[in-house]
């Protein structure tokens, strides 16, 4: 007969245990008692409940998992006694079940300090979804909330109260925050950061009494030093205690300060009873984190399935968290308790960061550390410590801001295969690499789902990503030049297909040469090709779904979902009348105005429904689209030139305007920029542009393929002393040749650097027509110039196109989430932390 295994507790660890049993296909009848009214959920992310996640979102149990695996779960039924002699468990609902083996996974309960008034209406704990539901309901008409306890959970809880719109205080008995994890200096940095968020911090406060108001509800707290704090509600988060009630009652061995004693096999003093998770005590230690609990679940499942492979040997209590948006990490011997250990600490009051390393006597190995305010190096440090790797000669470099030129980051290649990458799910580098190779994984999503790495707290995802990249590189999976999974062609190949086969829509191209439905990579690229080839309107019905939001709303999206408006100001020349119009429009719509680096004016903060109204005014005043949203010509910058400048030898402004008007709206593989300077002093910085023109005594010099930005590059001289007609002809040819042959999102500088033959080759093609395509290129450009139309002008005349400029399809209301605050006399979008201070719901 099948033997019966009863599990008590269906929390995170109890559920993981049942999953393991199911996965191992164990021959057991599985029964579980679950005290809470719902099956296991993600307690680690409990606070997500207040950020809008539902109980379903948090659930850890796949739909029908228990049914499909024949596991009986008694939901909402608490086990109340164990009879070890007769091997039975009895529940609150009166069910008595016999067992062959028993697993206790009862977790822990919140400790509520013995203070008078600790049970008044308005006091809560923070452990279960039920606790949160009760807190949320009660605090609906509260203004102030206090969290008792300034540890990890207390601070998370303070964040939750603040999200509920309460003025929040934290009261801590010890003299600093997070006394268990971090030291005085780290606590001070953390305190400063949290106070900056508007949360009151009261450390070294011992509460003597909680006083009720006339309705008997929480009203104020009194402290031993005679001070008081008024509050409407109190949440206790003063630590956890192992839930060992049942084990005590049936006489299992219990630790002095609680916890069910277990050995390496997760067996209690009764070999038929196992204990796992937070209720278990191993080596006199309770593990208040989920990862060690998961390890215990694996070990117990192995034993019960007859495998001796795996022992529980304790667990690392290193943690990294984001508390109230602030990184906090503590690992290994954070307090330097190891004999002879030395400390390197950097307390950067300006950046608001505190970083500490504990190293061994001769400074060659890392023993532990603390990071507050910036924990980006946590992954690297943890690996150095866990694998006992040799430290670099100047270990302080690990926590100093990188000095220019020196890269401190440790490559993932240096890690041994046994290095644990994901501590939540205990996945090693070797396992991840094997999965990438054997299952031919190519993206981070599949690495996560196939190995489970990164599926817990998420802290290891950057490392996992680095591993994936390194593996792919090693395997020589040279990223092929296919544009994406939908087309086995490069951009250049698609461009020639479009032209040679006279293809006019994405659907046509997809039907003939692609698969699937397309994506955010191929759609905008093909749209750009179609525009370069045929110059159809990008908002025409067959093209509109291809556009990035910038193109599809003819404006640049900003971080809050509003847009910027940049009208064309050719050559940077603008009349006072037009300047006044810009000012007036900005004023009327409450827009933020700024001069861009490209000699034009940016109006920011326009809602999608305001864009047509704004452009109506601008077009009426003679403005047209500046294409700041498109992969197209931006601007042709100019200096004032010979018209005013005492050095000028040519009229740079007139030429800049002419060039800008010629190429305005031209779509290309990437954006491109130009400039014209009136003499060799080069005030317009033309040599940093995709094509730059500099006046000489005899005509114009043409420079190409320069770049500013991340990787500056000087443009190179293509031809000198040109008359205007020749200059324009060469630019026509140059731009069209680039459009034909460049990769997606490749600026002219990068394109040029890959061009075999370099400048000589380019000169041969452009000047001497070595490929015999010059006439074609010029004709293509002539078509573009002749068919130009201002996209905004066209759109404003088409009521169907305008329908899309609305935030909601079913009401005229604007997006309520867009909120601005004033700064230096103008509007700007709020930042997230200000939303909390302003108590704006989202």
């Amino acid at each position, binding site marked *: 007969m099948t033997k019966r295994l009863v599990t008590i507790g269906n929390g995170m660890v109890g559920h993981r245990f049942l999953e393991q049993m199911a996965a191992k296909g164990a021959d057991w009848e599985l029964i579980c008692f679950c005290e809470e009214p719902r099956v296991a959920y993600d307690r680690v992310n409990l606070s997500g409940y207040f950020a809008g996640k539902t109980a379903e*979102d948090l659930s850890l149990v796949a739909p029908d998992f228990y049914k499909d695996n024949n596991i009986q779960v008694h939901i909402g039924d608490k086990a109340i006694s164990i009879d070890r002699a007769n091997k039975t468990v009895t529940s609150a609902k009166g069910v008595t079940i016999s067992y062959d083996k028993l697993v206790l996974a009862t977790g822990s309960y919140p400790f509520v300090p013995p203070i008078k008034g600790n049970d008044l209406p308005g006091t809560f704990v923070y452990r279960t979804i039920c606790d949160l539901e009760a807190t949320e309901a009660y605090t609906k008409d509260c203004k102030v909330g206090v969290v008792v306890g300034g540890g990890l959970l207390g601070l998370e809880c303070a964040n939750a109260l603040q999200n509920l719109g309460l003025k929040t205080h934290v009261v801590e008995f010890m003299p600093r925050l997070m006394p268990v994890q971090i030291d005085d200096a780290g606590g001070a940095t953390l305190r400063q950061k949290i106070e900056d968020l508007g949360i009151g911090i009261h450390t070294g406060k011992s509460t003597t009494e909680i006083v009720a108001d006339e309705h008997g509800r929480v009203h104020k707290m009194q402290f031993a030093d005679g001070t008081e704090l008024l509050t409407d509600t109190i949440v206790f988060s003063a630590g956890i205690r192992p839930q060992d009630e049942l084990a005590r009652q049936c006489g299992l061995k219990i630790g002095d300060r609680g916890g069910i004693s277990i050995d390496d096999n997760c067996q209690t003093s009764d070999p038929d009873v196992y204990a796992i998770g937070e209720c278990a005590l191993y080596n006199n230690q309770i593990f208040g984190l989920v990862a060690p609990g998961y390890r215990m679940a694996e070990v117990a499942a192995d034993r019960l399935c007859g495998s001796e492979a795996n022992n529980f040997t304790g667990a690392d209590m290193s943690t990294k968290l984001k508390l109230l948006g602030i990184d906090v990490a503590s690992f290994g011997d954070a307090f330097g308790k190891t004999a002879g250990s030395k400390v390197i600490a950097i307390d950067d009051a300006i950046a608001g960061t505190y970083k500490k390393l504990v190293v061994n006597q001769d400074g060659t190995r890392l023993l532990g550390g603390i990071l507050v305010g910036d924990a980006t190096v946590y992954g690297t440090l943890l690996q150095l410590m866990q694998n006992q790797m040799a430290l670099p000669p100047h270990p302080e470099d690990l926590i100093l801001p990188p000095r220019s030129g020196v890269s401190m980051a440790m490559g993932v290649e240096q890690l041994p295969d046994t290095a644990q990458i994901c501590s939540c799910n205990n996945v090693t580098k070797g396992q991840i690499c094997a999965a990438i190779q054997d299952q031919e994984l190519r993206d981070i999503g599949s690495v996560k789902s196939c190995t489970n790495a990164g599926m817990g707290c998420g802290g290891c995802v950057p490392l996992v990503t680095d591993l994936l990249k390194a593996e792919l590189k090693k395997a020589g999976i040279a990223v092929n030049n296919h544009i994406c999974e939908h087309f086995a062609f490069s951009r250049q190949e698609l461009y020639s297909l479009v032209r040679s086969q006279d293809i006019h829509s994405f659907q046509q191209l997809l039907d003939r040469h692609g698969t699937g439905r397309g994506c955010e990579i191929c759609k905008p690229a093909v749209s750009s090709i179609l525009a370069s080839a045929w110059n159809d309107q990008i908002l025409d019905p067959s093209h509109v779904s291809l556009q990035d939001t910038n193109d599809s709303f003819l404006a640049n999206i900003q971080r809050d979902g509003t847009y910027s408006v940049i009208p064309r100001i050719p050559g940077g020349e603008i009349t006072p009348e037009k300047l006044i119009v810009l000012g007036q429009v900005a004023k009327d719509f409450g827009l933020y105005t700024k001069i861009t680096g490209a000699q034009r004016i940016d109006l920011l903060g326009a809602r999608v429904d305001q864009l047509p109204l704004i452009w109506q005014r601008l077009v009426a005043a003679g403005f047209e689209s500046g294409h700041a949203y498109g992969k197209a010509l931006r601007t042709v910058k100019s200096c004032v030139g010979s018209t005013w400048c005492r050095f000028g030898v040519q009229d740079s402004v007139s030429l800049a305007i002419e060039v800008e008007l010629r190429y305005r709206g031209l779509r290309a593989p990437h954006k491109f920029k130009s400039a014209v300077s009136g003499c060799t002093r080069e005030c317009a910085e033309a040599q940093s542009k995709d094509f730059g023109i500099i006046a000489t005594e005899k005509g114009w010099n043409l420079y190409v393929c320069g770049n500013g930005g991340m990787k500056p590059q000087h443009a190179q001289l293509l031809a000198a002393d040109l008359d205007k007609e020749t200059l324009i002809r060469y630019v026509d040819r140059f731009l069209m040749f680039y459009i034909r042959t460049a990769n997606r999102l490749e600026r002219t500088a990068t394109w040029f650097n890959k061009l075999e033959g370099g400048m000589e080759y380019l000169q041969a093609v452009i000047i001497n027509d070595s490929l015999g395509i010059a006439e074609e290129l010029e004709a293509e450009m002539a078509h573009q110039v002749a068919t130009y139309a201002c996209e905004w002008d066209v759109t404003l005349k088409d009521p169907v196109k305008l329908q899309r400029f609305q935030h909601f399809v079913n009401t005229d209301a604007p997006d309520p989430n867009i909120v601005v605050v004033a700064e230096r006399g103008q509007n700007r979008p709020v930042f997230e932390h200000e939303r909390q201070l302003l108590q704006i719901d989202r």
Partner: protein
Amino acid sequence: MSQTESINSTIQQWTTICPLERILPNTGVCALVKDRQIAVFRVGEGTDVYAIDNYDPFSKAYVLSRGIVGDRNGIPKVASPIYKQNFSLITGECLDDLTIRLGTFPVQVVDGQVKVSS
């Protein structure tokens, strides 16, 4: 007893948001349904419609309806217009970060009208 939680059999409430032709093929719109911003997408030329949250958890802006619609390995998805993470239109799951999942909503086309239930 096994895990049999009673299935909520209350009648589903449908809100009509717009005629189907207001959603151009392979694009999305945003609807306000009981104070919740819902992004509704039309995949292909027909009546294949999906509804997920309009909220982009990465940028914290309500913009997903303005993303590019496409597919990854056959799964219909939308790419956030801000930082380009992809979300499955079927499950609401972020395909680039499996720890994140958006709400999904029942949606149907009846007599040429798009209806959402929240």
